[in-house]
Structures are given as structure tokens and as C-alpha cells.
């Protein structure tokens, strides 16, 4: 196998920074103040915020990593993004939303669906600039099955390699494990479209955008709840809820949750299935519960301090490195030395899989 230098690095989790007026222009006439947009007054104070529908964002600090290197436009201008990639010696990035991730908690689902459509169209045009280097993740609201089925097909046509859904089925909807959603999993499986669960798209608010001292007093608890929020949906819906058994070739990706929580989580899953089974009536699974995490789910990591220690326990084939660029604490122009250091204890072949090969496989990047 060639070394990672010759094959190139693929960031499996990078971000665009959507133009802040992207939704206001096409949707305000229809949805009025529900429309995600810049606002200049909040809680009686003047300033600049972004109203997502679910939260009011402290706007301006999200792309610090690109600001610091004078390449802020890489967030919305594909030409600048490709320049960044060349400078960072990155061959390709799988691009997620930024504002759109937070908009996923919008309580007005008609507005949310319209926001997804606007975003997907915009991202489709962004990646069309260079389809080899720029890969896209479509955003799908999950309150209306018929719409989701239609939009996932449109995402495929737009050239996306993956669709990101709500981390949990929205309130008022049946949970993902219910047969109601089976046509969606079947469609994604048929289209060979991986389904991604990304941090911040669940039910826990982002504490970075808390405003009052009372809210901020709960920041550590909220931050942790957000970082571990994926555990419940994996256990309840995808594993014990039988989705992975019913759709044996469906690809599921957990994005930006890091990975060192996984060994403990896998042990807990097996514990439920084995030691606790006398008192915990659970559905019978085709496999050992932890094996679904090792064989059916891919796991995104950025700079998990225990990454190198954890990867062998999960499997070298399941880890997708992503830079998170241009977000706070992300990895930018220093990607190469950071990766070399992070995965120094692994063989070249294993490193290659983590920083490119696994992403190429799961996202069908050839």
C-alpha cells in the first residue's frame, strides 16, 4: 500500500460556513420570524447574533481556525477552500454544514425542511466546483418520511456522499427503531448512501451559545450531555432497536463524537445483553451487541487524546479522521504534522486507513 503522503489525506469531517443570509433571502417571505437569520437585537441588547430557530448563536467565533490563517472565505468560497486544501496538503474534505447543524433543532419543521433544501442546493453548487476535492453531506430533517425519501434522492443527484439526519427522531415522531422509518433506511441502503449522525443535531442545546448566567452555570453538564448524546440512539434504535439487523448493508457514521468513550460503551452494551439479560428484557440480536460498533458503524475522530490507545479496541477499519476545519479547536494547515504525531504508534498501512482509506471506502470516494 502506498503511504499516506502519496494517496493523500481525506478529512471525513470538515465544515462549510454558510452565507448568513442564505435562508433569509429565499424563505423570509414565507416563514417570517421563524426564518434562520442574522438578528441585531437579543434580550434587550444590541449586537450581532444568528437566530437558528432552536437557539440564538453567539455569531462570529465559529470559524476561528480559518480566521487565524486569513482564509475565512474557505467557508463559503470553494476556490479559497481548494487553496486551503493545497496549502494543508489535504486531498479531499467531506463537508458538513455549520449553521445548518444548529438549525436542525428548529421546532417549525416546515421551515426546517425548507432550510435543508436551501442548504443542500447551495452545498451542491459548492462541491460542483471540484468534485474530486470537495465532497458533500446533505442535511435531512426527519419529521416527514415522504419528504425525507424525496430529498435523499435529490441529495444523491446533487452528488453528495452521505446524508446527515437528526440525531434523534424529532419530538412527536416515532423513534427511529419503529417500522415507520424502515422505508427510509431501505432507500439509503438501496442508494448506497451512508447515514450520518453528527453532534449538535440532537436534543441537547449547544452550550457555546448560552447567554444568561443561569444557562452558563449548566454549561459543563450540557456540553457533556451533547458529546455523549449519540449513545442512546445507537443503543435504543440502531442496535437493540434492530435497524442494523434489518438493513444489513446500511452504513452508519457517528461524526464528531470522538472515540475514546466507545470501548466502555461497548462493554456496557454487552453487559446489558449478557449479565443483565435476566432482568432487562431486550430484543434478541443477530450479533453480540458490541460487534455492531466494530462492524457496522464508522466513528469520526478529530484529536481524541486517547485515540491511539482506543483504535485497536474498535478496529482500524472503523475510524474516520476529520479536521473539523474551520471550527474552534480544529486542525488546519498543520494537518500533516498533527496526524503524524497523533498516529505515530501505528504502521503506515493503519495510518493510511484512518486518514484516508476508511473515508474513501465509506463515502465511496474513488
Amino acid at each position, binding site marked *: 500500500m502506498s503511504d499516506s503522503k502519496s494517496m493523500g489525506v481525506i478529512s471525513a469531517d470538515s465544515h462549510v460556513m454558510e452565507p448568513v443570509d442564505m435562508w433569509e433571502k429565499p424563505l423570509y417571505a414565507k416563514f417570517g420570524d421563524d426564518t434562520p437569520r442574522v438578528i441585531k437585537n437579543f434580550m434587550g441588547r444590541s449586537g450581532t447574533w444568528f437566530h437558528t430557530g432552536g437557539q440564538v448563536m453567539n455569531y462570529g467565533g465559529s470559524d476561528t481556525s480559518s480566521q487565524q490563517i486569513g482564509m475565512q472565505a474557505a467557508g463559503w468560497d470553494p476556490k479559497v477552500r481548494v487553496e486551503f486544501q493545497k496549502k494543508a496538503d489535504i486531498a479531499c474534505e467531506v463537508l458538513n454544514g455549520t449553521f445548518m447543524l444548529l438549525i436542525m433543532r428548529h421546532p417549525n419543521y416546515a421551515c426546517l425542511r425548507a432550510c435543508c433544501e436551501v442548504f443542500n442546493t447551495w452545498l451542491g453548487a459548492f462541491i460542483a466546483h471540484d468534485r474530486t476535492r470537495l465532497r458533500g453531506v446533505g442535511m435531512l430533517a426527519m419529521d416527514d418520511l415522504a419528504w425525507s425519501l424525496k430529498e435523499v434522492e435529490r441529495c444523491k443527484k446533487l452528488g453528495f456522499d452521505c446524508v446527515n439526519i437528526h440525531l434523534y427522531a424529532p419530538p412527536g415522531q416515532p423513534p427511529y427503531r419503529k417500522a415507520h422509518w424502515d422505508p427510509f433506511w431501505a432507500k439509503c441502503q438501496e442508494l448506497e448512501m451512508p447515514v450520518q449522525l453528527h453532534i449538535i443535531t440532537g436534543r441537547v442545546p449547544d452550550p457555546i451559545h448560552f447567554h444568561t448566567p443561569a444557562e452558563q452555570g449548566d454549561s459543563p453538564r450540557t456540553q457533556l450531555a451533547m458529546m455523549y448524546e449519540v449513545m442512546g440512539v445507537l443503543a435504543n434504535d440502531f442496535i437493540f432497536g434492530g435497524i442494523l439487523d434489518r438493513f444489513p448493508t446500511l452504513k452508519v457514521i457517528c461524526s464528531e463524537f470522538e472515540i475514546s468513550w466507545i470501548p466502555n460503551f461497548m462493554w456496557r452494551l454487552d453487559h446489558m445483553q449478557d449479565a443483565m439479560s435476566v432482568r432487562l428484557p431486550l430484543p434478541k440480536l443477530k450479533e453480540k451487541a458490541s460487534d455492531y460498533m466494530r462492524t457496522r458503524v464508522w466513528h469520526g475522530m478529530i484529536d481524541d*487524546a486517547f485515540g491511539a490507545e482506543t483504535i485497536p479496541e474498535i478496529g482500524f477499519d472503523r475510524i474516520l479522521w476529520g479536521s473539523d476545519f474551520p471550527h474552534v479547536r480544529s486542525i488546519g494547515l498543520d494537518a500533516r504534522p498533527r496526524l503524524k504525531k497523533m498516529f505515530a504508534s501505528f504502521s503506515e498501512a493503519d495510518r493510511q486507513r484512518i486518514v484516508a482509506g476508511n473515508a474513501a471506502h465509506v463515502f465511496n470516494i474513488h
Partner: protein
Amino acid sequence: MSGNGALKVISGDSHVMEPNDMWEKTIFKKWGDLTPRPVPEYNGKAGNFFYSGAQTLIMGRSDESAKKIGMQAAGWDPAVRLQFQEQAHVAGEMMNATRMLLIMQHPHQGVLRDCASVFNDWLADYCAHDPKRLFGVAMIPMGDVDWAIREVERVVKKGLRVADVPLTAPADGPPYRDKVYDKFWARCQEMQLPVQLHSITGRIPDPLHFHTRDEQETAPGVLLDLLYEAMGEVANEFIFGKILDRFPTLKFILSEFEISWLPTYMWRLDQMQESFAARLPLPKLERRASEYVKTRFWHGMVDDGLADKAIPHIGIDRIIWGSDFPHIRSIGLDAQSRVAKMFEKFPPADRAKLVGGNAVQAYNLAN
């Protein structure tokens, strides 16, 4: 080490099985149907249930491990408990509640306080049978801080060793970081009384007692919420809420949460304090956030499958093994062989700390 090469094993987390009618006999007249008690029917089904105040428990299987070895009475009869300890070569046990743990979620604080006092009296009598082998953990609801202080003073006089407080402050009151609780922490510190946070005493229901199909479908996620419930509380209240900074010699014990979640948790705490500092306004701490987990808490484990990898990251001095006997999946007569295998990678001196030495230190058992 004892003479025959066996480890001196002290379980840092074992359980009594309270007589089911303990509360009905004593407080039913005062509290009526709010009283925790056996109930013969639930949701139209006849059965063997126990009303805890927050849930209706499915009874009869909590002490599976004692039943299997014909020593069920070890749960309520201290003489049988000592027989069990002799047979298992266990030198002593920290005795936690079973039903009273679940009663800690009772929404009525007046009932809860009375339940705790009844339990504490009963447990003190149980442990008085052999105070050198039976170490009692008092249950202290926190809805009334002055009462909580009076109760810890009362139960310490009766010989109980630890104050177990609900994992989360009462839902209708301020969180633990609020200074209203400071006089309680101060009193425990002054009395050198360790404070314990045990699983199941927070706000998450115990999914082992779910009844309907819809509830049971959510059981895996709810169980995970329950097993990880300490994370948020420790971070928000005890570390960033600065209880540990304000009370620098107060001892805290996390009980039955296991330990292999801790290394990544400590990294996340430091990440919040450092990498996210620019965007996450947090109180300034006297130390690095992870240091509190390593130096101010003791961490209880039963049979964590990844313990040997986790322990070096946390510190050999901070881990307290407990059998969880007689609960389901607990360790009983095979304690010596199980701990020997579990900790075989550690040198004998470290093993001795894990299976008893640290418990002696944390719970002041040498006194």
C-alpha cells in the same frame, strides 16, 4: 495479605436487603399511600411489587446472587451476613441500601426524610452486630439542609461511616453548587465524614423496573443514562460548581458507576477548560479539571471489563473495588478468585490497595 496468601478483601460497595415492610410498619399512619411498601397489584396485574414513591419495583430478583448460594437472609440478618463473609474470605463490607436507593427518587421530601431515618436506624442496628466487619452507609436526602446536618450527626453517633446523598439535588430546589448546601459540606468535612454518590439515586428511573413494552424499548438508553448520570453532576456541581475548591479536605466517593469511562471523561473536562475556554465561559478553578477526578474522588468498581487499562490513568490509590453482593451480576463466594483474576496484572501491593486498602483510607475504616 493474610496468612494463606489470600488478599485481605474489603468490599467497598455491598448491599443489605431491607425488610419490605420496614417503612409501612413505621410511617404508614403518617404518610398513608405515599409510604414505600409492598403492593399486590400494579396496572391491573397481580404480582409481587414494591412501591418506592417514584417507581413500582418488580420484586423478588434483586438479591439473585444470595439466593443462588442459599444465603438470602444475609440481606437482613447480620449473623448470616458474617457467615457469608467468612465463607467468601471477605474481611468487611460497606453496606449500602437496596430499596432505599430507589426511594431516594421519592418526590415527597417529607416522606423521604422519614424513610431515610427509619432505614438509618435499622442499618445501624444491623451493623452493630459486628462493627469491625459491617460498615454502614447512611442515606441522607438533601431537601432540607438543616435536617441533613442533624441526621448525619445522629447517624455518626450510631456508628454509620458514610453519608450517601442523592446524586442530584432535589428537582424543586437549587443545584448542589448553590451555597445553600455549603453548611452541609462543611459539616461533613469537619466530621471527616465521606460523602458518597451512588448510582440510581439521581433522576433517571431504573429500567430494571419498567413494565410496559414501550418503556422496555427505551431500556438500553435509559440504563446508559443512569450509568453515566454522575458525569454531568460531578462536572457541573462538584468541579466547575467549585464545591471541591471550597471544601478542600472533603472526601467524595462515586459508587457503582464503574471506572473505564473516566479517562475520556477527564480529557473532556480538560478540553472544556482549555480548548473551549474562549467560547465556553466557565468558572476559574484552582486546578486542572481532571485533577479533581484523580485526587478528590474515589471511584467504585465491581467488574469493569476494561479496568486494568483505566486504572493507571486514574491512579491506583483512587479505585475501590466492591462486590455489589447480593445484587444481580454481583460477586459472592468467589470474591477471592474473581479479584485475583481481575487485578492479576497489578503487583501485590497495588492489588491490596484496590481490594481493601483504598477503602480503608477513603472510609476511615482504620479509626
